[in-house]
């Protein structure tokens, strides 16, 4: 298990579950500060053929974080026969507004807003 966290957020990669779970509030200062999370996500893409990203408990994400998720989705799209599932919450405003853009980057992505 790989955990990246600070007082506001937590990202957990669980290889056994083929999942990465985000929670809290992510407002890091630019793409450079997201690098450890990007590295964790790229590791998860490299090690699996199917992956679930759970954002249900990620209450806030700034635009640099949206760029980070886009980078990850593009990595997943570029890997042959890779299945990506994103699970979010329709109760969280940014998810209802912005997650659909990830599906436009990767039409095969399964997006489920619970």
């Amino acid at each position, binding site marked *: 298990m790989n955990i990246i966290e600070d007082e*506001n957020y937590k990202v957990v990669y669980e290889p056994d579950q083929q999942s990465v779970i985000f929670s809290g*509030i992510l*407002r890091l*200062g*630019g*793409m*450079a500060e997201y690098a450890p999370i990007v590295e964790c996500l790229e590791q998860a893409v490299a090690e699996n053929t199917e992956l679930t990203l759970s954002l249900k408990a990620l209450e*806030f994400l*700034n*635009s*640099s974080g*949206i*760029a980070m998720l*886009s*980078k990850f989705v*593009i*990595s997943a799209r570029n890997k042959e026969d890779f299945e990506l599932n994103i699970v979010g919450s329709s*109760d*969280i*405003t*940014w998810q209802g*507004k*912005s997650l659909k*853009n990830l599906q*436009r*980057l990767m039409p095969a992505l399964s997006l489920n807003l619970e």
Partner: protein
Amino acid sequence: MSEIFGNYCEVTPEESAEHMCLSFKPSSVPIKQRWRNNGLSADFLGDYLTTFFPKNNNDPASIKKQASIRDAAAYIANELLENAMKYSNENGKIPNSIDLTLMEDKLIFTEINGINTAQENNFKSFITELENNDPDKLFMQRLEESAMTDSSSGLGYLTMINDYQAVLGWKFDDINGEHKVTTQVVISI
């Protein structure tokens, strides 16, 4: 003489039902240390607004509306404050400020910061690109580019336009030899 881009309109205080302004001195503490204040200020502005959109626990639509306005305000204010902090002229005298004005059918965010000449030119180039392109196409193009370049520059404005249906405008002024930019974001409520 001001230079105007996009949909910028002057707001006179008497027109507004309610407004709140926060102001910061750009050079008082290092950016790293001040970064968390963006989130604190943005959340405060979002939470403050909830008073004007009371929720009724028996009415799910009112609960959703309150959360949606609070979260949209917090997202937009945070992006504006992050930009102001990244690009403001730390050696200048112009304070950073953000004003949130509540009108009958819209919210108006007005963010002001000083900016140096090189950044002002870059910013105007970005605004011109935004004005001359379909924002949706430009947004998807920037998302693709952000993966290659590790830059999220401009994405904040593009998410406001594409995901929050915001209308943006800018005013550039020169004040006592310093450049000042006013960014205005309007969303319907």
